[in-house]
Each structure stands twice: as C-alpha cells, then as structure tokens.
C-alpha cells in the first residue's frame, strides 16, 4: 500500500540526512508500528507518506514514495487527502473548526463529498468512535482521550485507505490510551485500513502490531518484519520484551498474556527469592498541603486534599487526564492560589512568596519544557539561570554537564532532542537547589534510553536530599523510580502509599512485569535481573 523506493530526506543546514536508504513496502490492511530511538527520523518518515515532507517542510526527498499508486512527488498533501489521513503529535493544532460534529465533517467538505453522504458518515463515525454524546461539544472542552478520538475520527470520515498516527497515546492516561488503541485496531480489522503508527510507549501498542518497522539509527538500514523477530534486534524494548530477553523465552512474548504462558518456570525460580521491598527512605517534611482546594475557573480542580512530601523521597502522582495533577503541582509551585486550605513549602506560602525566594524552595519543570527556556543558546540559558537565582557562575553549566554530558554550548534549545531539552530545563530549575522538585509529565516523547537516564538522574537527586513529585501517566516509570505513589481522581486523593502496594492494587496502573509475574510483587525488569543474577540485556 505504501512503497518507499530508495528514499532519503535531506534538510538544508543539517549535517546528516534525516532519513536515508529506505526501501520497503507496507502491505495493505496491516497495522505497522514504527519504532526507533528519538531523532532517527520517525516523524520525517510519517510526513513523507502524505507528502508534507517535502512539500510543506522543505528539504530534498530523493527516491520515490507511492501511496495507493500515487506518487507523492506529483501529489501535494491536499491531493492525497482522500487517501491518507494524518494525525500529528499535537492534536490541538489539528483542529480547524470549533465543535465535534463540524470537525468530523471538515475533511469531507474540503473534498466535496455530497451532503447526504456526509451526514451518514458523520453519524457512522460518531458511533464507531463512541463520540455520539459529544457531538455538539466545543472542542476546547474535551478531555485528552476524547480529543485524540475526535482527531482520528476527523480523518476517518473521508474513508482514507491509509491512516498515519504520530504518538497517538503519548499524552493519554492508560485508560484513554486503551480506548484509542481499541478504535485503531477496529479500523484495521473491520475496515481493512492500513495504519502506520509511531509510538514511544511500546508497552501499550506492540501487542496490536502486525508488522514492526524498525529504524535503528546509527546508519544501519531499516528493518520491516514480524514484531517478535524485529524487536529481538531492537535497541528499544517494552518491559515485557525485556523480560523475555532476560529469561531467554522464544518466541519473544509481545503481550502480557503471551508472557504469562511462558513465565511459569521463571515464577518458580523467583519464588525462592521474593522481592525485598526496600523501606522508603525517610527525610524531613519539605512541603505540606492541608485541606487544600484549588479552583480553575468555576471548577474545583483539587478538593480538600491533605498531603506531606518528604526529603529523599520520589513520589509519583497518577490519575486520568484532567484529574487535577497539574493543578496540584501548580499550587505547590505558587502558580495557583488556593481557594481553601493551605500550602506551605519550606516555610513559605508559595502563591504569596516572592519568586526569587520561592525558587530556592520549589522548582517545577512544566509539561512543555520549552516554556521555561528563553535564551538562544544552551550556554546563555545556563548563565541566565545562574543569574536568576544568584548561584555561582558556571554551577548550572557544570550541573548540566553531569546530567547530560557533551551538550554543545552554542546549540539552540529548540534544536535539542526532547530528552536533552528536558535535562536542560531540569538543570535550569536545579540551579537554585530547590528542596522540592516537581515534574509534570516528564516522559512525554522520551525513548527508553532517555527514560532510563531520567530514572538515574531522579534517583541520584533523591539520594542528594531533594524531595521529588512527578505527575505521570507512565506506570513503568512510576514503578521504577517512585518510592511512593499517589492517585488522584476528580481532584481528590484516592490512594497514597508505597508504590509497590498502590500500583499492584489496580490493573490499570500495574506495570507489565507485575502483571506477568503476579502474584509476586515484582515491578521492573531490573529487579528481576538483579534477583536472578543477570546483567540486564
């Protein structure tokens, strides 16, 4: 259905091609998952399918991409709109109209579909994606999962043969991600749509894939094949595959179900050495919220919440999209004034404190680290951070060197990869040595090596005496790094306890390893590797 013939993409001013030597065919009606480390050109590859690369982004495309027989060299994106539906990473930028129903109809209107047909397809799509109740809602009022489903629906109504999705579940909580993936799978099974999807959170998607297209990077050629075979040679792996490699299972399991069938011997072997739950490190209280209520507009986003955070502890904050996680972090960082109750961080009342004093007590890395960065180079950014908080000159740069070695001084922050940018923002925030460090969705867009790096950094910071609170949808990250886990629902605290207990209590939040090795409370591949005396990978 999609054919790449000797495709390479060069951007001007870039030292190396963004994509090179791609020569393969994605067959019709398959769900093809695109995997690879950050920065190997996954988004570029997706862009070539509907012609946005190079018609829209510039650059030079060598070779030929054909979709359903149409050559993207002579067809602009708008002329492929009836064949390829594309949903990009930023769903907010995808929407053109302002209500759900109009958005679903927009693509068909552009293509000149007859009104009667449009009406029928909108109704069908509303049902297919479970959006019927939302049909009149303004798009701005939808939750993350709903927005993603509307975006997919808006390209489905034109009945494209090919669907291209870039990180469809990265911003979603586990429940909403499952909703979206169920829809994608239904399209492949029932309508025969060919789906090409890039996703960093492999643990969520790999079990649905018919084919995996691996871009290994480092100049090695792309590989397309059966998921198990391709993942065996992939540098990025979901935990269930990592566990399979560790235990030497063959074929490699892709889903928790496959792994459980193979796991009996491993379970037996691990039974002799039950996991020792290390007691959470203790420290002095750093921040305290008492009966805290915070309103956003007329809605109480956080309700009557009491919480104490301790030094040396990493705490994960979980809950569905819109549960109030960001608001709670904002209240601790002094961005939102409490409507009721109180917050104290290191003796200060955050929303009243002077910013210059507050940065020494609490630092927040926002969802998009770019917000925090304002200088034109990495060096200038570090210098500005030192000046902002009166740290000794060079200290922030030294810290950055420790967190992410080898970052060039004169790089523009926008040219960094997601992981590097996050580390830079982290260094900027840490320049003031805040006692409490808050991170909002730090793993969005990070690949497994970058995530591993983050885990190491956070663990070291906690050992240094920082209290860390991170809001995340990533259960694997929480299992790996957090000593304590909080679950928010509708602004109320519904669970608070040691991570192992909280994540194991709920099937939604349990990490893959725990599901495979239940009932024993194993959480991460690393734990298992240590127990059976194997180096990981």
């Amino acid at each position, binding site marked *: 259905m999609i054919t790449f013939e000797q495709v390479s993409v060069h951007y001007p001013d870039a030292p190396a091609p963004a994509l090179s030597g791609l020569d393969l065919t994605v067959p019709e009606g398959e769900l093809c998952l695109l995997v690879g480390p950050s920065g190997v050109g996954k988004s570029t590859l997706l862009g070539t399918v*509907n012609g*946005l690369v190079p018609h*829209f982004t510039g650059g030079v495309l060598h070779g030929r991409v054909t979709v359903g027989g149409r050559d993207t060299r002579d067809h602009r*994106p*708008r*002329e492929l*709109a*009836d064949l*390829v539906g594309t949903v*990009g990473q930023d*769903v*907010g*930028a*995808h929407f*053109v*109209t*302002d*209500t759900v*129903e109009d958005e679903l*109809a927009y*693509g*068909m*209107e*552009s*293509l*000149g579909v*007859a009104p009667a047909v*449009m*009406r029928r397809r909108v109704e069908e799509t509303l049902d297919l994606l479970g959006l019927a109740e939302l049909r009149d*809602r*303004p798009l*701005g*009022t939808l*939750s*993350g999962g709903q*927005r993603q489903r509307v975006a997919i629906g*808006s*390209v489905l109504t*034109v009945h494209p043969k090919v669907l291209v999705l870039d990180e469809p579940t990265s911003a979603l909580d586990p429940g909403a991600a499952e909703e979206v993936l169920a829809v994608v799978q239904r399209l492949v099974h029932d309508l025969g749509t060919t789906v090409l999807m890039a996703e960093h959170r492999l643990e969520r998607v790999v079990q649905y894939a018919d084919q995996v297209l691996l871009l290994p990077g480092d100049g090695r050629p792309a590989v397309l094949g059966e998921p198990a075979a391709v993942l065996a040679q992939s540098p990025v792996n979901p935990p269930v595959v990592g566990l399979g490699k560790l235990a030497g299972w063959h074929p490699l399991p892709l889903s928790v179900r496959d792994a459980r069938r193979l796991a009996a011997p491993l379970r037996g072997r691990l039974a002799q050495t039950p996991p020792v739950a290390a007691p959470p490190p203790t420290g002095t209280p750093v921040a305290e919220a008492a009966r805290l209520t915070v309103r956003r*507009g007329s*809605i109480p*986003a956080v309700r009557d919440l009491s919480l104490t955070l301790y030094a040396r502890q990493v705490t994960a904050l979980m809950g569905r*999209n*819109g549960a*109030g996680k960001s*608001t709670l972090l904002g209240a601790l*960082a*002094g*961005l939102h004034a409490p409507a009721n109750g109180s917050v104290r961080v290191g003796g200060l009342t955050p929303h009243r404190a*002077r*910013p*210059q004093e507050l*940065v020494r007590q609490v630092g927040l890395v*926002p969802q998009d680290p770019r*917000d*925090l960065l304002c200088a034109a180079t990495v060096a200038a950014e570090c210098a*500005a951070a030192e000046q*902002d*908080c009166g740290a000794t000159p060079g200290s922030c740069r030294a810290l950055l060197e420790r967190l992410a070695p080898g970052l060039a001084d004169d790089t523009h922050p926008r040219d960094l990869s997601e992981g590097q940018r996050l580390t830079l923002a982290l260094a900027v925030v840490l320049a*003031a040595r805040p006692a409490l460090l808050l991170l909002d969705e730090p793993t969005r867009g990070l690949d497994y090596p970058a995530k591993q790096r983050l885990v190491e950094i956070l663990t070291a910071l906690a050992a240094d005496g920082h209290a860390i609170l991170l809001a995340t949808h990533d259960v694997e990250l929480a299992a790996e790094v957090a000593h304590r886990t909080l679950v928010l629902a509708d602004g109320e605290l519904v669970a608070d306890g040691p991570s192992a207990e909280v994540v194991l209590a709920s099937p939604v939040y349990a990490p893959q390893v725990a599901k495979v090795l239940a009932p024993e409370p194993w959480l991460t591949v690393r734990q298992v590797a240590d127990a059976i005396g194997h180096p990981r990978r």
Partner: protein
Amino acid sequence: MSPLRQNSRQLHPGAWWLWALGLAAAATRTSNPLLLLLIIAVAGYVVAARRTEAPWSRSYGTFLRLGLAVLLLRLLFTVLLGSPIAGTHTLLTLPQLPLPTWAQGVRIGGRVSLESLLFTLYDGLRLATLLICVGAANALASPARLLRLLPGALYEVGVAVVVAMSFAPNLVADVGRLRAARRLRGRPDRGIGSVLSVGLPVLESALEHSVALAAAMDSRGFGRTAPVPRALARATAALTLLGLLALCAAAYGLLGTDGASWAPPALLLGVAASATGLALGGRRTVRTRYRPDRWALPEWLTAGSGLATAAVLSLLATRDPAAFSPSVVPPTAPELPLAAALAILLALLPALAAPRPPGFRLPATRKDRNP
C-alpha cells in the same frame, strides 16, 4: 410551551446577526439614555436566555466591559480636555495648563460643565450600546459559523479570517503560560516588564502553532480545486477586477461633494461584475456544505424583530426628534417615549421564538482547554 421550542437546534447565525444589527441600528437613531439602556437590557436578556456554554459565548461579558471602558474613557477625556459644548452649570474647575500660542484650540484642564459631561455620557452610551449589540451577536452565533455562509469563491479568505481570530485567544493563553514560567525561574511576574519580556517567545509559539495548523489543513484537503477551463479563469479575473474598479470609482463619485450623476450606474455595474466574478470563481472550489443552517420560522421572527425595531425607531425618530435626543443645553431630564420603548421590547421576541441551543455539559477537563 410554544411549538417553536420543541426542537433544540442552533439558530441560523445570519438571523442572530441581523437581529443584533437591527438593535444596533436602532441605537444609532437616539441619544436618549433611557432608550439606550433599554436596548442593552433587551440584548442582555436574550443573550442570557439563548446562549450556550461554548467559549465564544463568554464574549458578551468582554464586550460589556469594553463598552463600559469606552464610556469611562470618553468621560475622562471630556473632564481633562474639555468639550465643544459650552455650558452654564459649572461642576468643577481644574487648574488649566498654560499652552503656547501654536497649540491654540487645545485646552488641558479648566472648567468642566454639567452640559458637556451629559453630552459625552449620552454619546458614549450610544457607542457602548453598539459595541454591546455586536457582543450579543458574537455570543449567540460564533463568527466562524457566520463565515461559513460566505460564497465559495471567498471561502479561503473566510478561513484565513477564522484562523486569524483564533490567534488572539491563543496569544492570551500563551502569555499567561509564559508568565507563569517566568515565575518558575524566579523572575518577577508582575508589572508591564514581565508581559513585554515574553513577547518574543509568545510570537514564536504562535507562529509554530499557525504553521502546524496550516500543515494539518493542507493534509486534510484544504484548498483543493477543480480544474476549470483557462478562458473561464481569465474571465473570472477580468470581471472581478472590473467590478472592483467600478466600485471604487462609484464610491468616489457618490461621496464627492457634487454627487456625480454617473456614480449610481457605475455602482450597479461594479456590483454586477463583482457578483458574476464571485459566482464564476465559485466553480473552482469543490467544497460542499455539511448540514447547512436552515432558515425557518424562528429565523424569520428573530431577524424580523430586530429589523422591525430598527425601522420603527427610525420612523419615530423623524416624527418626534425631541424625545429621541433629549436636550443637554439646557440640561433636562430625559423622558421615555412609550411607543419607542414598546418597539424596543419587540426585540425580546427571540428569547421565546428562537429554539433552545443544544445544551452543553460543563467542561470535562480543565487542563486540556489550553494545550
């Protein structure tokens, strides 16, 4: 209740705009503060009865504040700079700033009379009423829906306008986000300096957003055209150009001092040529409309009530000018002309006649509103 209210649906945006423009036209006919306040009250009641929970519905409050700001600003200027209305009732005398002779005719400070303040109050209130009427239309029918009514040839221009309008709210959200980020870095987040310093990053992110939107629109088929014969394309361009030239010439002739006799035919020619150009241009677009808005009885009643108010007030204003522009020199208490008041109350009809808009529940999440 009334059978008109059985189905909940969106009223045709054109009907709301005609109704609001009718009210606005009525407001221009009078400077009687009682009538103007009555118009504001009528518009406010209808908005309260028929607006939705959609984000654009909040624009009514914004326009209300804008109107108030205009009024206060004009009063302030009258107090500081004086007004051409001479009056005998002096309220207070400010110290006058001596100005050099070349600034003759400009006055700063000095005597403030009751008459001049009253005149400004009435005049400012009229302007505020106009603004509030536009705000009411905005709140009741999203401007984006109105732009959907544009003829095919102008559709792309309409989309550009919609995108430009969505730029402003995004900009405001970005400024808020980046000021919060400044606070996180330990910089002062209050004062004008903090707003200015986020200027560049805000523009950068707005630009990025626009490029992403353009890419999304292109990949969804925006701007697809049907092939048209070259002759037709040329004829379209020629007709549009001719029409615009004729319109410009006609405007010059009509607005000139000695109303030229050739102007009306030129105007007709211009209108005809432009309309033909637009109609032919529409052949290039392949677009169709999803569920075009219907124009039924509620639309007739809504638009009719607004236009009737305008017509009746215009008629009454010529018959009884005194009641419509109460005298300020000497100052008199304004009276409420009963017939005119009844005519304004006619514009309350949409609060009953218009169908209820489909109800929206409260927003599901807060965070996702400004991604």
